[in-house]
């Protein structure tokens, strides 16, 4: 009886440690946030928060043929995107681009390790943020999926 209880405790402890470990990995890898708010009366609001690690893993599990097809067009730009991602990771927080006119405001900035894109227009408000560290890992996955030209 004591042995069975002890084994259950060990399994429970293992589960807790596992969940805490996964939570820490997900937290450390950051989160991808997508928010879209339609400003029209009764307009929809979408909020999506996906741990970055899920995207990295998801790409690895994506069917190779589909990924190859999707990344073929982007291939010439992948080295530039990867280099930009690596350099942005080293940059201090800053606003890189800001465009403002009476109907729209666009901002691209780095905040706390994430690249943040905001668009606020008459019709809708869009917010997208993702960890800068995510960029090189996605690029590497895409590069591996397409044969070099």
């Amino acid at each position, binding site marked *: 009886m004591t042995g069975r209880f002890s084994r259950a405790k060990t399994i429970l402890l293992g589960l807790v440690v596992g969940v805490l470990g996964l939570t820490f990995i997900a937290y450390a890898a950051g989160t991808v946030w997508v928010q879209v708010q339609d400003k029209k009366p009764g307009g929809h609001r979408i909020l999506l928060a996906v741990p970055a690690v899920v995207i990295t893993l998801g790409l690895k599990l994506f069917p190779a043929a589909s990924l190859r097809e999707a990344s073929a067009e982007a291939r010439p730009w992948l080295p*530039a995107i990867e280099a*930009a991602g*690596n*350099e942005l990771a080293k940059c*201090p927080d800053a606003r890189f681009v800001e465009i403002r006119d009476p109907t729209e405001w666009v901002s691209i900035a780095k905040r706390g390790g994430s690249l943040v894109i905001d668009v606020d227009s008459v019709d809708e408000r869009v917010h997208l943020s993702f960890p800068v560290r995510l960029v090189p890992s996605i690029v590497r996955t895409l590069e591996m999926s397409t044969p070099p030209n």
Partner: protein
Amino acid sequence: MRRALVGSAVLFLTAGFAAAAQDRWLHVKVVDAAKGGESVNVNVPLDLAEKVLPTIQAEKLSHGKIKIGGEIEGVDIHALLGAIRTAGDNEFVTVNSPKQHVRVAKSRGYLLVQVRDEDQKSAKVDITVPISVVDALFSGAKDELDLVSAVRALKEHGDAQLVTVEDESSKVRIWVDSKNTSE
């Protein structure tokens, strides 16, 4: 969203025209003073430009160098710059017409281009480029501009006001400093 994409493209492409010193930033500020006018601010770390440029392989841009015609309307740019480099401080071009004043000169290590429009008293263009940057830009083959070398030269040069364009309705400023904002 289209603007965000354009902004992203501007960010990556402007990187090509920036320079890289430690924490040195290239700034572009465009303000349209007209009612309802647009304003654009771009701040690009020069290190980013130096690293990204060589990776872009486009039609005329490759390995951080852009292909140009060796001669522009019969002018051999490399020969012209060679002459400017070896010459002392001087006025190379002065055009005074009833409508416009144009001045191209070399002064204290800078190539200066100034344009003043008599029709619009407030219209003026000032381009100030360190000679070291011009040298670096034309350091490659005759038919190319070496953007990466120019970026490195700009990075080593220090703070610089590169371009100012003003007229009644708009102002454009391009400069390099160690701040990460354009305020």
